[in-house]
């Protein structure tokens, strides 16, 4: 098949970008979308032109590195599918396809289709963990976990941190990403001791990074390759409100405890 691509090209964060048109000829429907870009890039290099930069690594939909806005949709037309797992059979011969990077204030463009998503790492560093120093753990079966809770925690933990939720949100909110982590750890007994602090610090970091707030558009769930539901955002909000309301009290109690 033959396609016409409109690709966002931007030399670096400082330069302005623009769309450039490329012909992708003789593409097999069994190729993945990124293999189609590989072929195009090989041809560009042969002509002495700069290949199109895009992030990718595992190419199995699990590392979260890839991500292209394809015809206006993060990760393209197929639901619950990362860009690397999208195949050319989802397109038709002669199609014109537009490729853009994630667009969000908190995700500045580095080059072409590559953006800087390090804000996500900083949100995790702010509280997306259980403090369990290596070597300190009790027997894994000492605390039984209800299967439903373990399963729900798992569903939330499948987030691959690709950032499609942010790219799709009209407010560029990172709520789905943050909510997934808060739900994952909040559903497990191991996550309870830090549950309130986690909600406060992760939300504070999300705001500090310049992500927008959630106004319930639901676009995030629609593009999430792992199908993380927006319902998790309600859990995050519940934890956050509870944590904010009880913050003063908990600090006071902690103070008394140390004083005593």
């Amino acid at each position, binding site marked *: 098949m033959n396609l016409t691509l409109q690709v966002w090209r931007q030399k670096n964060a400082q330069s302005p970008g623009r769309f450039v048109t490329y012909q992708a000829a003789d593409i097999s429907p069994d190729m993945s979308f990124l293999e189609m870009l590989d072929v195009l890039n090989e041809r560009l290099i042969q002509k002495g032109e700069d290949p199109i930069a895009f992030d990718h690594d595992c190419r199995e939909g*699990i590392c979260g590195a890839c991500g292209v806005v394809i015809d206006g949709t993060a990760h393209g037309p197929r639901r619950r599918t990362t860009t690397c797992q999208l195949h050319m059979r989802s397109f038709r011969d002669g199609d014109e396809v537009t490729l853009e990077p994630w667009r969000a204030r908190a995700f500045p463009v580095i080059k072409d289709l590559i953006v800087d998503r390090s804000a996500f790492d900083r949100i995790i560093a702010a509280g997306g963990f259980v403090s369990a120093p290596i070597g300190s753990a009790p027997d894994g079966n000492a605390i039984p976990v209800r299967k439903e809770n373990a399963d729900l925690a798992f569903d939330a933990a499948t987030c691959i941190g690709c950032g499609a939720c942010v790219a799709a949100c009209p407010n560029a909110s990172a709520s789905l990403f943050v909510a997934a982590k808060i739900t994952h750890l909040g559903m497990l007994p191991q996550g309870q001791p830090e549950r309130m602090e986690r909600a406060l610090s992760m939300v504070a970091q999300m705001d500090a990074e310049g992500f927008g707030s959630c106004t319930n558009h639901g676009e995030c769930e629609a593009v999430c390759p792992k199908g993380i539901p927006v319902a998790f955002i309600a859990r995050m909000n519940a934890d956050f409100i509870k944590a904010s309301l009880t913050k003063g009290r908990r600090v006071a109690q902690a103070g008394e405890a140390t004083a005593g």
Partner: protein
Amino acid sequence: MNLDSRAPSGLLEKKWDKHRFELKLVNPANKRKYTVIMVGSGLAGAGGAASLAELGYQVKCFCYQDSPRRAHSIAAQGGINAAKNYRNDGDSVFRLFYDTIKGGDFRAREANVYRLAQISVNIIYQCVALGVPFAREYGGLLDNRSIGGAQVSRTFYARGQTGQQLLLGAYQALERQIGLGTVQMFSRHEMLEVIVIDGRARGIVVRDLVTGDVETHVGDAVCLATGGYASVFHLSTNAKGCNATAVWRAHKKGAGFANPCFTQIHPTCIPVTGENQSKLTLMSESLRNDGRVWVPGTPGDRRPPNEIPEDERDYYLERMYPSFGNLAPRDIASRAAKRVCDEGRGVGPAGYGVYLDFADAIERLGEQAIREKYGNLFEMYERITDENPYRVPMRIYPASHYTMGGLWVDYNLMSTIPGVFVLGEANFSDHGANRLGASALMQGLADGYFVIPYAIGSYLAGVKPAAPADDHPEMRAAVTAVRDRLSTLLGIKGQRTPTAFHRELGRIMWEYCGMARNRSGLETALQKIPALREEFWQNLNVTGENAELNQALEVAGRVADFLELGELMCRDALAREESCGGHFREEYQTEEGEARRDDAGFCHVAVWEYTAPDRTPLRHQEPLVFENVQLATRSYK
């Protein structure tokens, strides 16, 4: 080359305890004066960086991806072993040890493997504590399954995404330390050189992949947790960025490379479809718990699978290996698949595929049960092939997957360069000539969480914390070497892309150093690879410049290293005149086509010493001594 394993003497069960007692400790107040460099953020790297930081060391951690969470460990599917015996089915530390030694065809060091089996238990505890959502039963306790090469159920799992969940646990522990300021993280940085001063490691040279800046980072020890080199085959189950650059550069600076020819070809991957394919996708081995492998009984039978009656199918693994059946170890299952395809009984368009059929399991357990266990894998299969595996059997074929070989390390995980430690898949230590399923995750986390924190003290306690001067001649020489090489790669301006060279190298490796090897093939490869390398340095085309994000330049540097490593692999395969584990030399097989090991001649680790460009490397040996197991012929019949 000093190949003293430093494995402690005494009873197998007591070695690790005894060793830990004898290791020198670094005074807690002094720990923060030492800087440890950790290259890699997979299970081994992230786990190691977090635990070293918790102990009080200053840690600098590097990865080439945009986030440490994307290390290739994330892609592991099937599970992680631990000798818990929660199933009451006869497992024990000794059994896990024995299975691993036997699975590796008696080419691994007893003391290391036993330690790994001992530590396996703590790993599961630690992961649970970090919030890893392992599969649970209705009673709330941890669930297990069995995986290739084992007759007990000792594998812990998180659906088909065990690696993801384990890595997120380690990543979160790492991020916690980053937040506390004890680890400095350098994402999108690629290590290109080790700095060795007065015979010991003092730092690394890295390239900032966004700006192209070449920087030095100094430390008191350098840990390499940079993963395996299966991508030397171009098409493999590894992530696109996986590379051998870090270990190869260390090798050229004096680190011995052990058993480079021990590579693992995984039996259950989606078959190759086209010329421009960029990678092969693994279908987790755990599928072999419920899927049955078969091909048509007669060559050339092109009927669709559902039209082939039961008695005209050959469930060849069940037939050839009745006691392990579909769970036969990887090397054995892969070779069996190759054999039936070579006989003309393969399925799919190119005839290089076998069926993995779930019809019986679906009938027995119901579609829902299968969906719960493997849902994500089935979805992945469908996305790639456009076929529904609940209805039509999967088609699979072996692909390059894992490398048992790697930098040689002693019992403390230290390479032959003092101060360079090697963790995880990057070292050679625990899996001998073949790795069993669910054991790489175990080894990565064992090395990172539980071995390096102790082992590194043995070295650091003996050196004073101090940074070498920035203008030390060795530092300047390392930086110059890196800069020169980058500009050479950019300056060739030939005709062929880096990927074109990689693809051609991969074909040579797969053909001559893949599932079956022989003298004349290896000799051919040893002609072809240097010729290809020469062409590479004359005819490579890399566009753009160094001072920018330049992915073609990144690939070119990695391919350049693969072109040297590939040659060493062939050399090693040629020198090892026996068949063992993943290394199958056609000249050394039994009448039934099984591997014929030569314990009198080759019961050793082959360790290669780099000499000079285009000079033959030297082959050294670390003899393997077995005090606790009897060297048996590996049989899974």
